[in-house]
């Protein structure tokens, strides 16, 4: 039961004559495409733009917090900055990041289909995303929004004069984009699998996307209706959440978090999928406990719907209800722990190499472990009282979302970049970027845990001077982190023209996507593949390679 896999000779690899990239030319062929790979590229470009817009706001926030008083910008400007940062990063970057780009590109290929089930719906979902993005930019240029991304009523409905309606509509529209993506994935995974591709032969990437898609389809509409009610409350003054008319503002938070907590899993689950693929590939070993990892994704999706009120422990929910939600929160932490240990043990007796995606994956494991464990602090009700609404919670969700998800996204982009573009990026500088990101990240967000326990509230433009030292550290870290994020943009763009030709399977990975040419054909497969091997079957790959060598030789 042991396998040796040799890296192919990249010198001899050449770009295929025909691929999805050169099938058609011109802007129209991209904007009206039904090809999931092209839509994935469209998504990749648009979310990158929004990531850097959101990142700009993050930079401004950190710069303002360099000094205790609000001297760089006025308090209301600062409020708009963090609101835009939150809205853009959550709804326009994190939610679509891995699913709409990497997932969109790979899921049909991984299940052995020619395309997603509904190519037009897929394109529509990109357009909805763009409309949502434009609405966000409109809200921004018209004067900004300062509700915070949580839109807490009655602040958002009656006490602010900023462009809440535009921003609400933006999220509503972007929400439907994510609903359609999720719907497409579920249908594709159920209905479009190639002959022989049974559920337990699916890569874990597909499993985790399936779980995330279920959350998108079932959770997002609740956010949509909640935002509709908020908009109606602002426009015509209905009274569902308005305490002055008899409504309960806490109901808004129930409905909002009913989506927005599962949204956390929508963001992180696809990242889990990426990590499973990357760890398995670079340790040349089947993921330890495939079934456990697959079912833990499903368990997270199911339990994810039962825990939302842990965002509201101090908000005046009933004590007993808080008790139930806290208990369930502890349960949902377990599947994540299972995943971390299973990934760790995947390394056991592997044959490990440390390519860039693997470095990002290691970064993910470390940071996500911290993020997850600090989540237990917050799920523990008594501790939550002191920690919630402080920088502790900011640090916690940045460890999960940025340390976890963004690392996973970068791992995925680096892992599948040769498949998407057919070219390799420079190895040395990309490893350096991974390292810079990791160091910068820790420098930025670790001090925030300490700040949080000290009691520094989040969303403060000004703060007491004794918090300055830690804030300066954090801002310094943000600078490093910024470098870490700009670097990949540069060398990946560079590699598009000057990168080495990657060949179809540069990592010697087992996934179906690696058995076809890179970049793939528009129809993905020349003929419908018939799957007769398990996921992560390195022996099968070794046999296949041997066979090819023999036939070619």
């Amino acid at each position, binding site marked *: *039961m*042991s396998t*040796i896999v040799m890296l192919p000779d990249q010198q001899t690899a050449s770009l295929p004559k025909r691929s999805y990239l050169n099938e058609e030319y011109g802007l129209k062929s991209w904007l009206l495409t039904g090809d999931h790979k092209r839509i994935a590229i469209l998504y990749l470009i648009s979310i990158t733009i929004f990531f850097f817009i959101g990142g700009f706001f993050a930079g401004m926030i950190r710069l303002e917090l360099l000094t205790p008083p*609000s001297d760089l910008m006025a*308090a209301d400007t*600062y409020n708009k900055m963090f609101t835009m940062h939150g809205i853009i990063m959550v709804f326009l970057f994190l939610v679509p990041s891995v699913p709409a780009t990497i997932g969109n590109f790979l899921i049909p290929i991984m299940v052995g289909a020619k395309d997603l089930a509904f190519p037009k719906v897929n394109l529509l979902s990109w357009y909805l995303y763009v409309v949502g993005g434009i609405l966000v930019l409109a809200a921004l240029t018209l004067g900004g929004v*300062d509700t*915070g991304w*949580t839109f*807490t009523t*009655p*602040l958002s409905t009656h*006490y602010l004069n900023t462009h809440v309606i535009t921003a609400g509509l933006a999220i509503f529209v972007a929400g439907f984009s994510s609903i359609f993506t999720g719907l497409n994935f579920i249908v594709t995974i159920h209905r479009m699998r190639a002959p022989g591709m049974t559920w337990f032969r699916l890569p874990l990437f597909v499993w985790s996307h399936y779980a995330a898609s279920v959350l998108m389809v079932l959770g997002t509409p609740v956010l949509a209706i909640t935002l509709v009610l908020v908009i109606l409350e602002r426009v015509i003054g209905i009274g569902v959440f308005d305490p002055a008319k008899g409504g309960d*503002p806490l109901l808004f938070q129930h409905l909002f978090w009913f989506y927005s907590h599962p949204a956390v899993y929508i963001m992180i689950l696809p990242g889990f999928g990426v990590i499973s693929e990357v760890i398995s590939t670079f*340790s040349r070993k*089947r993921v*330890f406990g495939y079934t*456990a990892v697959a079912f833990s994704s499903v368990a997270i999706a199911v339990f994810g719907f039962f825990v939302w009120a842990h965002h509201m422990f*101090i908000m*005046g929910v009933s*004590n007993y209800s808080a008790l139930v939600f806290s208990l369930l929160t*502890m349960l949902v*932490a377990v599947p994540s*722990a299972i995943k971390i*240990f299973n990934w760790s*043990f995947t*390394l*056991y*007796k*592997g*044959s*490990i190499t*440390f390519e860039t995606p693997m470095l990002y994956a290691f970064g993910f*494991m*470390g940071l996500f472990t*911290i993020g997850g464990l600090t989540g*237990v*602090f917050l*799920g*523990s009700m*008594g*501790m*939550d*009282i*002191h920690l*919630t*609404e*402080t920088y502790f919670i900011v640090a916690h969700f940045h460890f999960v979302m940025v340390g976890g998800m963004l690392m996973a996204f970068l791992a995925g982009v680096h892992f599948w970049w040769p498949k998407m573009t057919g070219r390799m990026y420079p190895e040395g500088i990309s490893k350096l970027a991974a390292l810079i990101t990791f160091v910068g990240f820790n420098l930025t967000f670790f001090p925030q845990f300490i700040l949080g*326990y*000290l*009691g520094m*509230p*989040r*969303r*403060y*433009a000004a*703060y*007491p001077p004794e918090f*300055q030292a830690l804030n300066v550290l954090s801002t310094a870290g943000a600078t490093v982190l910024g470098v870490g994020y700009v670097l990949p943009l540069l060398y990946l763009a560079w590699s598009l023209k000057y990168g080495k030709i990657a060949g179809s399977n540069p990592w010697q990975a087992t996934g179906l996507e690696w058995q076809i040419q890179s970049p793939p054909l528009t129809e993905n497969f020349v003929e419908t593949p018939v799957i007769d091997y398990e996921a992560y079957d390195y*022996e099968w790959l070794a046999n296949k390679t041997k066979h090819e060598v023999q036939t070619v030789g």
Partner: protein
Amino acid sequence: MHYFISPVLWQFLVNWLTHFALFPPEASSIAPYADALYFFLILISLVGMALVLALVTGFSILYRKERNPEATQIEGSTLLEATWTIIPLALFMVCFVWGALLYFRIYNPPTNAMNIYIVGKQWMWKAEHPGGQHEINALHVPLGKPVQLTMISQDVFHSYSIPAFRVKREVIPGRYTTVWFTATQPGTYHLFCTQYCGTLHSEMIGEVTVMKPEDYQAWTEGSTSGMSLAQNGERLFASLGCNACHSGNAGARGPNLAESYATRVQLTSGSYAMVDDAFLRDSILNPTMHTTAGYAPIMPTYQGQISEEGLIDLVEYIKKLNTNYRVQQTLNTSQVQSPVQNQAQSPVASRVQQTAPAASGMVKP
């Protein structure tokens, strides 16, 4: 040292090093409990982190390609997987139970706590002491005495946070919330609004001053406004005409309020309710939802007519109301002063006139 670097930077460095905080002061009786849980959680995290780190680095070194060119395929291990399901689960359950105990400790005030009212509004904190001391963005509390805060917001959600005490509670529009603490260290501590509440959210801050009992005594006497909350409430009670119905007389149209606080009353709906601050406030604003059994739902709503401070005055007044003697005195006086006006206000006033003199001698023990 500072000869070698720029004086500006030197100043910054000195400033940071002298004002450097890593751990908040433990200034309440709850703080040690919270910190104990915190350190336990940190311990778990460190162990978990160390474990993952050891596994990842250990395996990375042992099974790197140069050392182990052939991977051995392993399907999984149910035993191992069960281990890392059950042990974290058990640890998380400990965190849950411990956290729940702490939560109930923080949110269930002791019965002997002294009460201070807090009104939050964009963007200031008003503290109203029962003795009539009013503070803005400040709170003075005595050392070693349990203090309960009864809080309400006039506009949006706020959150009253005193990190040194490890307590925090959302301040909600339209509903009282409470939190309590016993300060254990004299000093001045930060008070923050931690729920984002609009433009000047970061300026909705203040100071909590913990004073030795004798200093607190002095402060109380020195800063009183001359009228206690209950006295203000009594005035309001009379000027809003509450006393017309809640006179405590046998035939009064409203229930007797004297000594009603902290009792259980039966409502028209048949259910029972505890008369607490929230119940009193709600009864004034939404009387028909809190009609006491045996009384007609005739009380008008005072929604929009009384400020939150006024409501607090009334609540405090009713809370302290032991006897209806003064209520009836006030009624009699007002009738003597302006009988015509009262006549005009029939039927309420005339009814009161008939009953009031007869009952004026009745003093509730």
